[in-house]
């Protein structure tokens, strides 16, 4: 079946199997920043933004995503131009193995879009679906606070 997606502002057309999950379709087409963790909606490593909302791409059938706008970590920034969230998480040392990080940053990105000055509680709530086994969360959450400050022009 053919589906049309707008991924990181680029129009794409993919041929997918009816049983294919969105995470597998994205990875197959080069978006390797979308990670497969638990593959059942429990860890958030596969989090992408679908029409601006963070969702677990392992829980979405690709055919049902037809017509959606998707943002992956590849759309947030790269080594030439890091997004403030990416910059901040490096500064706070909030990355160890890095596997949870794309999903975590995307959830944070969505938060800052609708709430540019979130409290720490709000940051925790917005990222409550992105589990991390390495960092103990503190440095990652501080990164979001720092990024928000930068994006408000305060740093």
């Amino acid at each position: 079946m053919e589906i049309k997606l707008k991924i990181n502002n680029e129009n794409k057309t993919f041929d997918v199997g009816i049983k294919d999950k969105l995470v597998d379709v994205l990875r197959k087409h080069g978006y390797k920043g979308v990670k497969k963790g638990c593959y059942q909606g429990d860890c958030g490593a596969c989090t992408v933004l679908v029409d601006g909302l963070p969702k677990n791409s392992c829980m979405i059938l690709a055919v049902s995503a037809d017509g959606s706008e998707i943002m992956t970590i590849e759309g947030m920034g790269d080594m030439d131009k890091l997004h403030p969230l990416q910059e901040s998480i490096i500064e706070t040392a909030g990355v160890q193995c890095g596997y949870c990080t794309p999903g975590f940053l995307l959830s944070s990105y969505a938060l800052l879009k609708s709430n540019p000055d979130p409290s720490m509680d709000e940051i925790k709530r917005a990222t409550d679906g992105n589990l991390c086994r390495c960092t103990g969360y503190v440095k990652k959450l501080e990164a979001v606070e720092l990024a928000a400050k930068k994006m408000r022009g305060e740093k």
Partner: protein
Amino acid sequence: MFKNLKEYFKPNTLKEALTLLDEKRSSVKVLAGGTALMVSRNNEVKTLVDIKKIGLDKIEKDGKNLKIGAAVTISQTLKNPLIQKYCGGLLHQAAYFIASTPLRNMITFGGNVVSIYPWSDLPVTLLLSDASLNIAQKGKTREVSYRDILKKHPMQSIADNEIVTGITMPDMTGYSGAFIKYSKTSFDFAMLDIGVVSKIKNSKFEDIQFAVSAAGPLPQMLNESAAMLKGGKVNDDGAIEKAVKNSVTETKFMNDKRVSIDYKKEILPVLLKRLIMKTIEEN
């Protein structure tokens, strides 16, 4: 789940959806959020009918009642001021700790009351408010009391060619409500879900209802225990102690690999009492 999946449809109207269900019958499943379907071990499904774009995503007042479309997501539910005001915040509290942010953007109100697990959170609020489900099939609709539906698993009361289109929450003006999801972390499944609603007049319980989830195989009301307080004074501590102690014997428990029955029996009366006191405070 999808070993035998062959067809996917995304109709534009309810009528189209109902016609598809009527044609495909036994091998068809309705797809809304899809979170239950995606982890289901049932491989019988051959056809999926996606109901996200057929107009079931609205929350509105129907006279004094609240009508919630079955495809409204939990995130949408939480943002809605009508929901926030409903029954002293009961519904908002129950929706708040469902799963995680990304999953709340997918899980629907309908899904959380129909495709239920023993630990599903919203059913408690529907039991307490005596809500009903609006169900449609090609050519007809019916409205069924949720208390009746929960005599068995909701999926068993809904035919292959039917869709739950919405949930009607009755007017609860005058009631205060409190809900708690007791779990290790916010994302964990509930070890116990408890809800209380009460209507207080002249320092007496004009009405009081208890419901629990995650204790046994289905969400359940504790009518015997609540009846012990109905009509009585709100400051009758002895009666409240008796009622919460009775909840332990009235509740049907089941074994749970995450938490023992003994533990549930310990915390149920404690949490139930806290919620009763909370509704008294908020009245």
